[in-house]
């Protein structure tokens, strides 16, 4: 058997390490959000190809080219923020949330259906980014 004092020491040190690992996972959430964002650009890409190559009729609303560009640029911004999160996790995650809301808010203003399409994916990305901001905020506090 091991003494309660030793077990206490081990658990305390391990808990501190586990909290530090959570901060790392918060940073990874930004990268995952960027990748999911890139994947969600596949739908406007298919619509664009359908229109340009197969001659499908134009649909009302935001042009697929603009929507595709917005999704890809936002994904690139997330990747840059993921790199920045190494040094400033909370500010990077906060910026990611603001950028996400601005881009999708603007797309939603022009075409409200874009908010409904892929609402589950958007919610998942937002949950991940909020988690990243929360874990980044923990760095401000002593562990």
């Amino acid at each position, binding site marked *: *058997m*091991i*003494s*309660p004092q*030793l*077990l*206490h*020491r*081990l*658990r*305390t*040190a*391990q*808990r*501190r*390490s*586990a909290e*530090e*690992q959570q*901060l*790392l996972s918060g940073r990874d959430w930004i990268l995952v959000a960027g990748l999911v964002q890139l994947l969600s650009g596949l739908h406007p890409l298919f619509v664009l190809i359908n229109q340009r190559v197969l001659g499908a009729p134009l649909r009302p609303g935001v042009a697929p080219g603009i929507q595709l560009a917005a999704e890809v640029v936002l994904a690139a911004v997330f990747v840059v923020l993921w790199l920045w999160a190494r040094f400033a996790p909370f500010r990077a995650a906060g910026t990611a949330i603001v950028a996400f809301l601005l881009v999708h808010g603007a797309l939603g203003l022009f075409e409200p259906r874009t908010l409904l399409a892929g609402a589950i994916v958007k919610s998942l990305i937002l949950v991940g980014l909020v988690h990243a901001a929360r874990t980044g905020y923990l760095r401000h506090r002593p*562990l």
Partner: protein
Amino acid sequence: MKPPTLLTAEPADPTPDFGPRHRSGPLALFVAFFISFSAAGGGLVLWREGLRLWACLAALLFGAAAAWIFRSLVGRFRRHATPHRSHAVLTDVLGFDITGTCHDVAATVFFEPDSLAPGAATRVLIFVENYASRQRIARFRFGPHAALGLSEARTADLNLAAGQAALYVFPLAVVADAAAGEHDLPVTLRVECPTGAGLRLPVGRHHLHDLRTVHFAAPFTLDIASASSAPAAASEKPRYLSLASISEPAPRLELLAGALGTASTAGITPLPAEPL
């Protein structure tokens, strides 16, 4: 970087691999269905287009892949019952905060002690436990870290038998002119399955996510005020100890106490009393 050497924990764990080589979980079932539909659909379309040869080839190729996956699935269901149960040393016995595994290997990395003075000795403790029915090789890569005198990254390749729990102790000393403050030692874990994935052993009530690569950041605090005159324990050598084997009825925690109880306590900052 030094070439890795595969380490085997002492005392050796004689537990052999058991269970099917392939896990054949829900993903395999999905792939099998997807390939079957592709084989049937693609073959029929090509047949109707008059491309009979291509239709046969497509059906043969996709059908063979689907049959191979279904065969491993049948093997999985036939040997579903696992004769052993994990001791769950990390999650239950020691009560560590473990949220996930890497290819079924649970791991945690931390310093003991983790509040140090410049020049003091410490140890990196790497606890690992294999929650699979087949052996694993856990490849740890840690460092470099200037404050710990690690000028280059070090590796530790730890062999784990089925269900085995083990502890790797790596002694370190803080350099005398290290800057005070919070430090992190970056550690990366990747796991290989040399004899196949095998089955997942039951691990109590815990649900652990499985990842391909796990990154740790083992924290420690350098405090000038707690500087100790005790010299760093330079004579201590890395040790790899087996803490539990599923071939044995109970974990061997006395080995853990023996490995940690006799070590130097230079630089330890007393922690406030807290209920376990």
